[in-house]
């Protein structure tokens, strides 16, 4: 299937690791020029070297997306270097666990700053550019904690649900400008984040790695974890010309994990 992505340009936040890096790889392989950002310059450099040569061009700009000025620099520099911005994939951010009792305001605020304010800032910065182009494709990576709350994933649940509301609202607002906004909702993907969570389970519950890992694979009907590249492929489809009529939609990629009939 020709996705029609050759010659397009894409920004991928959180593009130095895990799902973000896999998204960058998929878009490069489809012929996009890609600008990635991440907090740490050294991690970003490693990713940039790894991705170089897979597609037309890859640049990396160290950026903390909770810093509005840094976000503006990321978007402006990307635009100057790449000439246009057709695609934005928001993949930055983390997953903070905790119950309603253990979550401090600080923790909740940190999670909201990353995923709600951070996503919002990048979207707001690219919208005028996409409006001028009369074309834009935005995908937010939203953890399934949005659809599927757990008592011990309180900050993540609240935050991801807010990102879903933001995604749909922005999709409505910019539909007539031919800008499509969608969510891709992964769960149990083999990324640094999952490795970290497995380590955490081992530590906190005093179980071995196999037991801790099985807790995650058992949690979905397919009985396996997903790969970052699988999320990359779905994102590539969602931002492609082949999904021209898809906006305000959220697509689960979770091996059947979530329990919602209409999701």
């Amino acid at each position, binding site marked *: 299937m020709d996705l029609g992505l050759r010659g397009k340009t894409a920004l991928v936040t959180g593009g130095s690791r895990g799902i973000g890096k896999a998204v960058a790889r998929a878009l490069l392989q489809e012929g996009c020029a890609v600008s990635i950002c991440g907090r740490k310059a050294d991690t970003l450099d490693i990713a940039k070297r790894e991705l170089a040569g897979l597609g037309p061009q890859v640049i990396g700009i160290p950026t903390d997306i909770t810093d509005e000025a840094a976000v503006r620099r990321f978007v402006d520099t990307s635009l100057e270097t790449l000439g246009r911005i057709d695609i934005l994939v928001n993949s930055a951010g983390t997953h903070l666990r905790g119950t309603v009792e253990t979550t401090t305001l600080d923790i909740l605020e940190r999670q909201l700053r990353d995923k709600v304010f951070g996503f919002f800032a990048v979207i707001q910065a690219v919208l005028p550019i996409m409006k001028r182009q009369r074309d834009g494709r935005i995908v937010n990576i939203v953890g399934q904690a949005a659809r599927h709350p757990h008592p011990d994933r309180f900050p993540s649940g609240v935050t991801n649900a807010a990102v879903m509301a933001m995604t749909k609202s922005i999709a*409505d607002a910019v539909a007539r400008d031919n800008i499509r906004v969608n969510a891709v909702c992964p769960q149990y993907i083999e990324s640094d984040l999952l490795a970290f969570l497995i380590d955490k389970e081992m530590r906190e519950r005093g179980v071995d790695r196999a037991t801790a890992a099985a807790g995650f694979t058992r949690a979905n009907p397919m009985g396996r974890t997903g790969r970052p590249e699988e999320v990359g492929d779905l994102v590539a489809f969602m931002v492609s010309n082949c999904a021209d009529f898809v906006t305000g*939609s959220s697509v*689960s990629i979770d*091996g059947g994990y979530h329990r919602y009939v*209409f999701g």
Partner: protein
Amino acid sequence: MDLGLTGKTALITGGTSGIGLAVARRLVDEGCRVAICGRDRAKLDAAVAELNARDAKGIVADVRNPAAVATLVDAVIGGFGGIDIVVSNAGTHIAGRFDEVATEDLIRHFNTKVVGPWELARRVAPHMRERGGGRFIVVIGQTGKVPQASAIASNIVNAAQHAFVKSLSDELAPHNILVNAVCPSRIRSPLTDGLTLYNEVYLGRSLEQQESKWGAEVPLGRWGEAADIANAVAFVASSRAGFICGANIDVDGGHQRSIF
């Protein structure tokens, strides 16, 4: 993107026109061998001729009839040596308010769109399990998520299709048979030719949206084409979508109103 569909075999129900035919065409383009079914021999022959694919098959079957579904599945397996992909697309749209739809029509509708795919799954799942996996995709009109005015029968039956998809996906996932849905609305097809959307203009819209005529037809400001649905079906059927299960993709120009 290479979808890895070359040489796969697909059965598309309701494949003689509109979305079903577009799905068949797309899958043929991606290298699949396809069988389509429909109730009318003449339409079926015309559709197969239009597909212009070397071994495309047209099989007359009414999916409301369980025996016919069994014969259909056997015929496709016999003809192609196996089925990798099923796209359940048969079924129409019933207009009318609660007191305008005959009970028999609701039952007929349910039989086409729920009992039909149910029987199809019962017949095809053991075969796919033996082959190590497969894909089962149901095309569910968006009235399943967004109840449309004066279409109560479709609203009920399409919502039931969602429950069917999610429950079936749970049961078949351990066998690597991935069940998903694609949800169209605002697609140009023979089915929507005469459809008036007037009653929906103000459905769930804010005052600002009503005044600006936002969503009078479609939030994106244009109608979609059957090919848009076919693209989503092809992606979900592809080897690139190996971790998507019990999910659905809205292909509706932004029509549906839930944030999820």
